[in-house]
């Protein structure tokens, strides 16, 4: 029997797996993102926005929108994860401003704007003391469980975030979350471990084992050669902003020797398009490839 195509139905369209999902931002910090946004529907099936930037969104891209929790800010200097009535909150210092992220704020915003939402999680960097690591994982799990119990919009696809410091801890976390009716799972915190590909693949395998055939996303690992291995290992989707980061520096994914001096906004746009096409394996007309 042919295998059923793996896909995720959302309020704004179907995402077919495996899927490479570009990250974008709103606001004026990354002007290249505003340039490439209107072209994303031609190149990808969905787009990922961080909670922080999603709040600056004026016009919704015409694509399924994935909104993460912004828990990534845990890694910023001066950020603090604290417990409040059994759930994990995050205090973030942005310059002089202090912002507190709560599971409720995140979910409410996602219910309003997202097609796919990710629960509020707290990354565990490699050298974090084990006690703090455990605390963060527990709060990450608590937040996810709270979210699935409090989701109101039925067509909001809710993904539980998994944070861990080892293969076993990932497996345990996944097992815990798999008991709940999440639409999918997402592994965070792998970016600082990306060099150790074997570890990454082992974590993926451990998680995959616990979550039966539900969708599995991996945050932030967007290098084309890595994504191919991740997809083989059972990952359904990845997201990354590398296509624009490289382009802003005048660089191309497919040719590491290439570097454009002093790229103009339009040069960057072209490079980003070309990078994203490489990543999503979209065929571009030759004329659209400039470099």
């Amino acid at each position: 029997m042919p295998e059923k195509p793996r896909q995720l139905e959302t309020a704004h369209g179907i995402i077919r797996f495996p899927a490479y999902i570009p990250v974008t931002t709103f606001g004026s910090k990354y002007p290249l993102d505003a340039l490439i946004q209107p072209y994303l529907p031609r190149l990808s099936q969905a787009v990922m926005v961080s909670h922080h930037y999603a709040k600056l969104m004026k016009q919704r891209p015409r694509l399924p929108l994935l909104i993460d929790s912004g828990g990534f800010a845990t890694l910023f200097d001066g950020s603090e994860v604290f417990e409040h009535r059994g759930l994990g909150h995050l205090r973030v210092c942005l310059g002089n401003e202090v912002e507190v992220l709560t599971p409720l704020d995140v979910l409410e915003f996602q219910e309003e704007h997202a097609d796919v939402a990710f629960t509020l999680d707290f990354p565990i960097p490699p050298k974090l003391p084990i006690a703090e690591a455990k605390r963060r994982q527990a709060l990450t799990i608590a937040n996810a469980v709270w979210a699935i119990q409090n989701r109101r919009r039925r067509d909001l696809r809710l993904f539980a975030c998994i944070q861990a410091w080892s293969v076993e801890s990932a497996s345990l976390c996944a097992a815990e979350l798999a008991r709940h009716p999440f639409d999918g799972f997402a592994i965070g915190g792998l970016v600082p471990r990306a060099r150790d590909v074997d570890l990454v693949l082992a974590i993926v395998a451990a998680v995959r084992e616990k979550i039966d055939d539900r969708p599995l996303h991996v945050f932030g690992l967007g290098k084309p050669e890595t994504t191919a291995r991740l997809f083989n290992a059972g990952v359904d989707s990845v997201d990354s902003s590398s296509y624009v980061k490289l382009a802003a520096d005048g660089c191309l994914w497919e040719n590491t020797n290439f570097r454009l001096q002093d790229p103009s906004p339009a040069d960057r746009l072209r490079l980003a398009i070309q990078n994203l096409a490489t990543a999503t394996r979209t065929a571009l007309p030759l004329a659209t490839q400039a470099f």
Partner: protein
Amino acid sequence: MIDLSPQFNPAQQLVMDHALLDSGFSCVLQMPTGSGKTWMAREAIRRSVQCGFRAVYLSPLRALADELSSRWADEFRGTPVGVFTGDYGGTRKSHPVSYQDAQVLIMTPERLDACTRCWRGHWSWIPEVDWLVVDEIHLLGNRGRGARLEGAISRFRRLNPFCRVLALSATLGNREELADWLEGIEFQSDWRPVSLKWRIVHFRKAAEKPGLLAQELARTRDAGGQSLVFVQSRRRSEQLAAFLREQGLDALHHHAGLDHSRRRVVENAFRESSTRILVATGTLEMGLNLPVRQVVLYDTQGFDGTDFVPLAVNTVWQRAGRAGRPGLDPVGEALLIAPSWNSSAEHYPRGRFERIRSGLRDPQSLAEQILAEVHSGMARSSTQLHRVFDGSLAKLQGDRLPIDECIGEMLRAGMLAEDEQEQVNEGEERLRATPLGRIAIRHLLRPATILDLRRFLCSVTYFTHFDLLVAAACADDCEPVLSVDFEELDSLVERLKTIDSFLFEGPRETWHRRLPRHGKRLLSALKTAVVLLDWSRTGDLESVANEHCCYPFEILRLIESMDRLLMAAATIHKLSHRTDTAAPDCSVEPDYQDPGIGVLRQMIINGVNEPAAKLTLIDGIGAKWARKLVAAGITDLSSLAVSHPSWISTLGGVSEKRATTWVESAKSLATLNVRPYEHLLPSPIPVVPADFESGTDPYRLRRALELNVQAVESGVWAVSGGLEPHRVQGMRPDFTCDCQDHAKGNVCKHVLAVRLQCGDDSLQLPVQRLEKGASDEHLDLFYLWFERN
């Protein structure tokens, strides 16, 4: 409604069979006139609109854009079709469909250029465009418009790398090269809905031409066909149409001097066959479908701005291609009327089209495009600019573009500046447009125009309205350039004597330095200034046009140009008279108007005199009210200042309260010195009449000096370089020529040319007098006439 299962003609079928429009590439289609290019473009657009994309269609002429948009609005039912030309937007009529709403955007190249220059404001639709159709792509080779089209296409493609260009033309000598430039594919077909037959009719004497033409036209008429005759000048089209009518042929003339409605009337008369012959200038060579069996090229030479030169093969085919109505005419006939002694017309039927050359070769155009790139933020360093122009058609054609020289020049001239805060690389700074540079961009003027205006405004302490109008009329951006006939010089001299000027007070050398033009071009600027002044005096287009041998429609276009030029002049004037030049970037409000220049602008755009124009300085008084007040006897600010508001309100349409504020403003403005030189007295322009004592007519002699003479056989010469080639025969001192001037009993320029060639001593003295030059103290129109441009 669009037929959803259309039948293709053979050429279109080939395009479909090769899936050229689905290849994802840009595409250059070269197909004969009337073979369904525009129809094909509509088909491509229909498909991508169905997929939710937008499309842009560039049409070289406003009138064609209008016509197409109303047709397509019908055909694309349910799909919003917008038209964007100089007739809409800004202070004119608002767009029938907004940019945001339009799914099909029909534009002139200039409008697309403007959109790409401020692309951020158009970012909501530019990325959604799938096809950019460039109809009549050979416009790329047009002096002036070509570089703007190229710049617009180039910027558009960089902003939207997914957009494909569909380039259409019947006449391209370098289709492959253009396809390379667009990184696309190309297709060519010779299929015509009706086949085209070429014929050449020879004349032995120029005087035979009208008669020959009449014979040919009568034959076509008797066989039930209609004819379109192309001639080289407007006057010729009128005279020839009149001549043909005298011969019992119903002919009308058509040229760019006619306003749109008159042109429409003429075109419709021809469409309905109530007139069966049209005598036209180049205006009809593009895009209009007219029921023509026979196209006659009456003149195989045309004026290129300085000289009469043989028509390009491209032009001849653009015109000839119109012959033959599908289903009605068995064949289309292209008829050339050519001199019997010259075989240069024989090559036209072969159709070896000329190569389209990039307009960026002209340094002026390059400078304008550099400025546009910098200001739009699309290229802000030398490295980036080099990369942009590496992708230009000019570069592909092997031209060396002096980019760094251009940047350097504009830096020195203060149109560009370097941003010290932002370095690109070592020694390379980010560029930005200065307020002066931005004036050029805002008003779509060439950088040289801005610099010339600035030079003028900075070098004169005082200037009259006339002075400024002359300076502005000297700009390349002032269109159209009015021609000045030799016969008009006397009346122009008389008129100039009555006009006040500071500019022409000094010696010739001084004003020559302030005005960038010479010769006939300067004469034309003088005439333009006079025409516009007279228009502001009377507000009567017809009579001004009549008096100055031009067309009302030309004056309307001049008013449009002058509006932009005077707005630019006002801003330049303010910039260059600011004391804090240390802060060149401190921004000038875009709408700032120097009151003096502002008043002049009101005079010109509204056709009102100075006192009435001053009334428009008051908030709430526009041209309409100004005229109304003048008609009611309130002819200037001071009379408004002493009027009773209650009385003004009896004029209707204004409340007493508002009238009170008008009167109050008038009181404060009446003391405003809008003409700083009011205490000075400019003098009338010192003009001299021609004072040519020699028996030889100076005009003909000067023209004779420019002609080419070739001995054909003993006692027979071919003279070329004039309106058309002529033949001179005979021996000293008895020469005859076949031209009309000679037929009238004059010693024509052709005969003079032959005499010069034969070394006729009696002409030595007059030639020396001609070449010695003009008077120093006086404005010598006759000298200008002869002076090289």
